[in-house]
């Protein structure tokens, strides 16, 4: 790893576990390369901490390619930091200046309890998906992919909704800690395709009910989620979810 000449002050949230109160702790870092990713900078910090015999900072990460949705740092008041359409792992130190103070906090939501330091428990998202974010198909050979004609626009919209990596930046940045962008993307990716139709109205009711049960907040249409989403998931999805929900409750005869 190349060394550089950036000197930084980090203020990192340290919290032993869910039952202990946490606090911001200051760390000085020297000779940081602008070519490092934000997580590589954290690796440098952790090596220093380990060498000093201190506990390293715990944070979520996996692919470091911006596609897995694991990294989840709230950097200087914004999820995934100052750049648009990137995850924390794809954020580079060149987005900061020498001498900067950087505040790093975990996602904050009642539905995302802190596990340790910067790691939060996002299994609430898994339970929302399990409640209805699937389709039922017959076993056996897969059908030919082109069996069902799907208009290009429709396929594109479904694909864009499916780009959601479930990182939780939408919840983290929303002033109400609402999960509606995530849930609506997971509903839309199926509602837009013929394969999603049989369970369409059952799905929206079950997933919204689970979202509410997890203790997420309510959408007030500030648009912060769309602006901060590393995958550019659109607010259109929330409108579609709202429409489907109303149809399910007031028009569909099927109840959940």
């Amino acid at each position: 790893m190349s060394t550089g000449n950036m000197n930084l002050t980090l203020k990192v949230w340290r919290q032993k576990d869910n039952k202990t109160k946490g606090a911001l702790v200051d760390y000085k870092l020297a000779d940081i390369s602008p070519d490092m990713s934000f997580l590589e900078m954290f690796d440098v910090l952790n090596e220093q901490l380990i060498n000093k015999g201190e506990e390293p900072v715990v944070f979520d990460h996996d692919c470091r390619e911006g596609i897995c949705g694991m990294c989840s740092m709230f950097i200087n008041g914004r999820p995934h930091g100052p750049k648009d359409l990137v995850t924390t792992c794809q954020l580079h130190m060149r987005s900061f200046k020498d001498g900067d103070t950087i505040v790093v906090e975990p996602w904050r939501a009642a539905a995302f309890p802190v596990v340790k330091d910067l790691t939060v428990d996002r299994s609430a998202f898994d339970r929302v998906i399990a409640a209805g974010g699937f389709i039922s198909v017959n076993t056996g050979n897969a059908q030919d992919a082109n069996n069902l004609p799907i208009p290009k626009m429709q396929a594109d919209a479904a694909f864009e909704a499916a780009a959601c990596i479930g990182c939780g930046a939408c919840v983290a940045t929303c002033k109400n800690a609402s999960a509606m962008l995530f849930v609506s993307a997971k509903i839309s990716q199926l509602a837009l395709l013929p394969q999603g139709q049989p369970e369409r109205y059952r799905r929206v009711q079950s997933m919204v009910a689970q979202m509410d049960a997890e203790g997420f907040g309510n959408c007030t249409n500030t648009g912060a989620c769309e602006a901060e989403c590393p995958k550019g998931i659109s607010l259109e999805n929330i409108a579609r979810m709202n429409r489907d929900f109303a149809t399910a409750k007031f028009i569909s005869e099927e109840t959940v």
Partner: protein
Amino acid sequence: MSGFGNALSSSIGRKYVMGITGIFLILFLIVHAGINSLIFLDDNGLKFNIGAHFMATNWIIRAGEYILFLGLLVHIYQAVNLTIQNKKARPEGYAVYNGSANSKWYSRSMGLLGTLLLIFLVIHLKDFWVVSRFTGIPTVDANGNEDLYAVMKEKFQDPVRVVAYVLLMISLCYHLLHGFASAFQTMGWNHSKYNGIIKRVGVWYAIIISIVFALMPIAVYTHLID
């Protein structure tokens, strides 16, 4: 009403209630601003008093008044409800939160703006509604109608009241600036062909309605109309 389940108590159901009552109140403001604009005819309030007399005596309007208050109360009740839930959804806040990086301040301040409007409403209802419905309008105009215009002229002699009304119309403007388009989004009316026009109409609506209302105390106080 079996079968509707948690339709109205769910997060989206509550949002629908906010959207529907919001649109209803938006429509009401058009009627209110329209009739009040009759004072700008500068005919010593004669046409305005005819309008006020109609609004006070027509039974459909009187029935509508109950629905209006109901709609307003539901809008407030649900807003308080949602705000409490939203606060609970993030018990521990951020040390640094850069909201202006991703959203407009007034979209994040609907509760504050709404509370200011509620304070305004209490003053406003006491100033005019209580007088015209309960304590009675003291004088009649040349047509023999209750002279609500005279009440208006008298109230807007007080500079403190004039300034308060104008300032609170600014909070109305910002409340509508977010509320108009937000109601459409909540109702699911998001469509690439109409989004632009909804946004533009919302901005013009918010600005025109608040300016029309704010001009009334200003015009009366400065004797632009008499």
